Every structure is written in structure tokens, then in C-alpha cells.
């Protein structure tokens, strides 16, 4: 039979062992602190430097939405393929879409910052040469109408999928269309001069990789607190293989986009890319490659590494940092108008907000059908 982790049998009458309810209480307090502190820092950042503040809010929002979508997409493909290897960890998938409504609300907040972020939302947009003939699509009312529509579609199809287990195939279709529009609208229109037809696939590769990373972290952590007792080394191995494969996939798509721009050297495409390849953004550009591909490739190459919880957790942490940096490099250069990169209050606030909201959204779903009085396994 498949190898399971040994969890020592505890004497249940013994007191002093924290229960699930205890740890939930403690984590909830911490998450609220993260949310409030993050929101405060982000607000402070908005006051200090509006561009950076709004840019970080967009980053936070988009990343949270991607986490929700990552869970949904994994759930959908496992439903379509009739996968059974993932049965013990489906709870981790089902929790992630709970983030989507919150991300949608945050995204609508950007209405007030649209003019700071997007050139097409500024009063002088009509004179912008690159926007000529495009303002019919890129204007605030239509843009935020699409935002509402897209989030509505995600939340509705997501509910059906997570709660009734229905509509996986329609979700994939809806997802393909809406996620492409979302990437082109929310991120690529930050720099109207620059365009890339593979942009949405690039966004998808990062989103999917991040989704697997979060499922992996959730599966490991939830197994340790006793919420997913059926998880075995086999699931870890499968998740490790997925992480390894989709890290390579991300690099493949990254190169597919980068190589053509680098080779053709067309002024309209190379201009914005130049910022990343030269000057102060360059280290971040290479760090992005190392975090999302280089280190995960080396760390997960061996078979033993793919089943080791410590290696998996470390790799997932690297990948989450890499995903944040990847989005940072897509959003910040045009928003900051080519200024030097910076990490400060606004960035920290955005990250705290993501962590806090992520926990607050997912934990109740994890706890569904669980016994709050269940005691934590010790030394598991």
C-alpha cells in the first residue's frame, strides 16, 4: 500500500494540546492584523506616491484573483480528466476560489486610481498616438463594466464548480476568454505602445504555476494540522512533478515572448523591454528567471526532492516570491514611468494584504466539515 506518514497516536484525554479551533482563532487574529496593517501601509503609500500605491493595489488584486483562478482551473481540469490522484487534496483547491469576490471588490476600487495607472484613462488620452482608435475599447466605464462582468463570470462558474462539482468544461471556455481579456486589459494596457500576442498565455503560465504552489503548501500544512489525513507521499510526488513541469512551462512561455522581441529588435517592442534589460531593473529581471525557473529546476530535479516536504515548501515559497516579482516587473515599469524599482511601505502593505486576505478567505473552507475540537497531531 502507499506509504503514509506516521502520526503518533495521542492520548485524547490529555489536555493542553491545541485543537483546530484554537489554532484557527490564533491564525484569524494574525490574519486580521496583516489585513489592517497591509491596508494601512498601502493607504500610506497611496498618499506618499500615488503611482506606486495604485500599482501595488493592482498587483495585490490581480495576484489574489490569480490564486482563486489557479484553484478553480486545477479543479476544473481534474474534474474533466476524472483524476483520482488528487482526491485527498481537493479541499485545498476548493478553498482558493473564495478569494475571487474580495479580489473583485478591490479591482473595482481601482476606478479611483485608473487615471494614475492607465494612460487611456487620462484626460489627454485622445492625443496619445498609440491610443488612436482604441479608446472605444479602453475607456473607464466600459473597462470597469468588463471588470464586473469578468469577475461575475468567474465567481458564478466558480461557485457551481466548487459547490456542485458541475460545469468544469464551460468554465475552461469562459476562463480562456476572460483571462485573456483580463491580462490584456488590466496589465498590458498599462503600456499602450507595447503589445504582445502571447501575453495572456504568459500570464496563464504564471497563474497556473502559482496555483500548484499554493495547493502544495496548503496540502502540506493541512496534513500537518490533521485536516487532510489521507495525503500521502504519492500526492507530494505528483505535486512536485507538476511544480517541476510547470516551472519549465513558465520558462518556455517566457522565452517564447522574450526571444522574438529580442531577435526582431523592433523599436515599439524593444523600447519598454530595454528598461528591464539595462540599468537598475536588470537584476530584478534575472532574479525573476532564477526564482521562477532556475532554482525550482535545480531543487526539484531529483525524485527524492519531489517527495520531500521541506524541499517542496521551500520551492513553493520561492515560486510565490517569483510570481510577485513577475507581476511587479509587468506592472511597475510603465506605472513608474521608467523610474528605478523600489521596495517600501506600499509593496510591504500589498504583500501583507495578500497574505491576510488569503488566509481569511481560505481557512473557513478548510474548516468546513471538520471537527473544531480535533486536536493537532503532535510531531507529525
Amino acid at each position, binding site marked *: *500500500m*502507499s506509504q503514509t506518514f506516521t502520526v503518533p497516536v495521542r492520548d485524547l484525554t490529555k489536555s493542553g494540546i491545541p485543537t483546530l479551533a484554537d489554532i484557527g482563532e490564533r491564525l484569524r487574529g494574525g490574519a486580521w492584523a496583516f489585513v489592517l496593517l497591509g491596508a494601512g501601509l498601502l493607504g500610506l503609500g497611496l498618499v506618499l506616491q500615488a503611482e506606486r500605491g495604485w500599482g501595488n493595489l493592482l498587483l495585490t488584486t490581480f495576484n489574489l484573483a490569480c490564486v482563486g483562478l489557479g484553484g478553480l482551473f486545477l479543479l476544473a481540469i481534474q474534474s474533466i480528466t476524472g483524476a483520482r490522484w488528487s482526491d485527498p487534496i481537493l479541499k485545498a483547491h476548493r478553498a482558493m476560489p473564495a478569494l475571487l469576490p474580495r479580489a473583485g471588490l478591490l479591482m473595482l476600487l481601482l476606478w479611483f486610481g485608473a487615471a494614475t495607472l492607465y494612460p487611456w484613462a487620462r484626460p489627454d488620452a485622445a492625443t496619445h498616438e498609440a491610443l488612436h482608435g482604441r479608446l472605444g475599447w479602453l475607456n473607464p466605464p466600459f473597462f470597469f463594466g468588463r471588470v464586473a462582468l469578468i469577475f461575475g463570470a468567474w465567481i458564478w462558474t466558480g461557485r457551481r464548480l466548487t459547490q456542485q462539482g458541475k460545469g468544469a468544461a464551460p468554465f475552461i471556455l469562459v476562463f480562456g476568454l476572460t483571462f485573456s481579456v483580463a491580462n490584456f486589459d488590466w496589465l498590458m494596457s498599462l503600456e*499602450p505602445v507595447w503589445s504582445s500576442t502571447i501575453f495572456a498565455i504568459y500570464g496563464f503560465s504564471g497563474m497556473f504555476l502559482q496555483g500548484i504552489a499554493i495547493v502544495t503548501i496548503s496540502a502540506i500544512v493541512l496534513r500537518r494540522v490533521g485536516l487532510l489525513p489521507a495525503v500521502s507521499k504519492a500526492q507530494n510526488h505528483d505535486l512536485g512533478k507538476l511544480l517541476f513541469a510547470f516551472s519549465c512551462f513558465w520558462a518556455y512561455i517566457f*522565452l517564447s515572448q522574450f526571444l522574438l522581441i529580442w531577435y526582431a529588435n523592433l*523599436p*515599439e517592442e524593444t523600447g519598454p523591454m530595454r528598461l528591464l534589460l539595462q540599468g537598475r531593473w536588470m537584476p530584478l529581471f534575472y532574479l525573476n528567471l532564477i526564482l521562477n525557473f532556475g532554482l525550482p529546476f535545480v531543487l526539484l530535479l531529483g525524485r527524492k526532492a519531489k517527495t520531500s516536504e521541506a524541499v517542496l515548501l521551500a520551492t513553493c515559497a520561492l515560486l510565490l516570491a517569483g510570481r510577485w516579482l513577475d507581476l511587479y516587473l509587468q506592472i511597475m515599469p510603465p506605472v513608474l514611468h521608467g523610474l528605478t524599482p523600489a521596495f517600501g511601505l506600499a509593496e510591504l502593505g500589498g504583500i501583507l494584504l495578500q497574505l491576510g486576505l488569503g488566509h481569511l478567505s481560505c481557512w473557513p473552507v478548510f474548516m468546513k466539515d471538520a471537527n473544531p475540537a480535533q486536536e493537532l497531531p503532535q510531531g507529525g
Partner: protein
Amino acid sequence: MATTELRNSRFRASFTDPEQLLRAVAYLRAAGHRVLDTYTPFPVHGMDEALDQRPSRLPRACLAFAALGLALAAGLQIWTSAVDYPLIMGGKPLLAIPAFIPVAFELTVLLAGLGVVASFFLVARMRPRWRVPDLHPGANDDRFILAAELATDVQFPAVARDLADLGALESSLLVEDRFQRGGSFWDRPAGVGALLLACLPAFLILLLVPVLNRDFQRRNLAWDGGMGAPLSAQAFDASGVLPGGKVLQAPPPDTLSRRGEPPLAYGPGKAEADRAGRELPNPYQPTQARFNRGKLVFERVCATCHGREGDNNGSVIVARGAFAPTVLVSPVVRDMPDGRLFHIATFGGPTKMKGYGDLLSREDRWNVVLYIRELQKAARPGPTASTPASTGAQP
């Protein structure tokens, strides 16, 4: 023979569920039978542990082949592009790593994939056969099969009953493997013939190419009103992102320049050619160096059609009647002014010759004009008029 000894001691059983298969394997092993292998439509979790198999060593072969592919691809590209024949392409550095990645990646994956499959066949001692020995047809569909060998002193019917209790659809003793006898042609290992047969579909697809060819000249429908079309920057546009605020950039170092020559004050066409003939003198005097240079350029570029002596003899085109070029040592060309010849070298002749203004530097074109004059001096004035295949005064 081994096969006769094994007769009636091996059996198979089929199941509909991987869990039943796992339980059956555990039961058989506990009862002392030897489970030979299991055959399933997909990898069953926990089967390796249930069969107590060692981890496969194939990943090591995979890694070795992948490293070999990477080394080959990287080595070949770096050596040819940067060491053996260094040539600047498109303003990129000689050691242009991003350009090498696709080939390196593909070769790594190719060798890893082919290598690990070949290693697997080798290790498993599998060879292509015309007819594949099939333990149970359902193993490729929706059945989970196991093959095992009876423990000594155990009768099969008892085991079959136990297996049926564990959910087996059927179980049966295996008769002697007729494939090991190699009786008919189809039971023998297949050789090169099978390989060629496997390639047949590829050849058939090649036949379809003319049918599938589409008109690449036709433009696609702009369903989005052209919004998806990229905004292309023009050479003399201003740019907000490129250095110097303009699109046109200084060429990379070591680029061969046109030596900053001012634009030529003449355009193509007959009138311009005549004007050049009237106004444009050769700015250079004949010297030995110019003669040598002109001879070099003439023999490399012009002699292909005009012949090394300018008399069409030995040219690739001499025998082609209407395509024959003008004889350079003919009186018509002798009488043309230098400027007119230079104009033809730059923009081409009125009928067939193409202009070489974008390939040869201005100085070289003048050198060629000087060299043509030397050719005309050297040629005997008599026979040129009767040289065959001249189309007359058309340069």
C-alpha cells in the same frame, strides 16, 4: 526448455478497479505466490510499494542523455557562431545566448526522450514484433491485470476462488507462450521492415501538401477593426522610451558603414542616366591599386554575366540568346561617358541588369568603371562588333 517447466504454473487475473488489484497483489504476495507484474491503463498509486519494486534507474539515463543533448547543441552553436566562423548577425553579439536556447532545448528534450525510451527497451529486453504478445486486451482499456506464478504445492482452483472473492472478473492459467516458439513469420521479431512501414503515414501526409497549401498573400479579415495590429514605429519617429528620444539609433559597434557618403544627386531612369553622363566625371584617376580593386570587384560581380574580358565569353549567360547582356568592349559602350556607366552600375540598365548601388560601395563602382575602360583598351577593336549574342546598345 524453460517454457515447458513454467507450463501451467503461471496465471493471470483481471479486475475493474485499481484498489481491487492492489488488494489482490497484497493477498497473493502474502500467500507466497510470486507476482510477476501488473498491467494497468494508467499508473496506479502504491503499486511500486505493493510489488516491492526498486525505484527505476531510468531517470539517470534520462539525465545523462539530456546533458549530452545540451552539451552537443550548445557546443555546436557556440563553436560555429562564435569561434570557427564569427559573423555578426542582425547586430547581435557573437555569443548570443538567447538565440541558442531553442535549439539547445529541443536537442536536450529530444535526446532525453529518445535515449530514455531506447534505454527502457534495452533494459526490458523488448524488441519490435509484428504481433504483440497480449496478456489481456483490456490492459490498454479499462481492465487491471496481474500476472503471477503459483507457489509450489498450491492448486490453481483454490487461488482462483480467492481471487474471485477479491473482485476478479476472471482468472485463468496461462498456457505455454507460443510467441517464444517463434513458429510463424508474424511471431518473429520485426526488423527494418517494420520501421519503414511505420514511416508510411509520414510519406502519405507529404502527398497532401499541395492540397493543404493556402494563399499566404491574402490578408486575414480584421475582425477587431485592426485594434490588435501592433503600432509600428517608423525610423524617423520620436520615441518616448528609446535613447536620444528618437527611434533611429546609432548602429552597434563594428557595423560596416556606408562611409558617411552624401546622398547621390541622381535617381533611376533614362533621363537621369543621360544627365549623369553629361554631368558626372570619374572622381578617381587610374592607378595600379584601383585597377586591382576594380578587377577584383568586376570578376566577382560583373563577370558572371558580362564575361571576364567584358566580351560575354565565358559568362554563364553567353549562350542564352535574348538574355545575353551588353558586350562591354563594344563601340556603343566605349562611347558612353563615365557618368553613364556609373549610373548603370548603380541603378541598373534600362532592360535587364539590376542596380548594384546597395551592394557595392560608391568607390568600388567607380573602380569598376575604370577597369572597364582598361578592358576596352586591351580588347582588339576589330572582332568586338561581330561578337555573338549581343543585343546591341542596351546596357
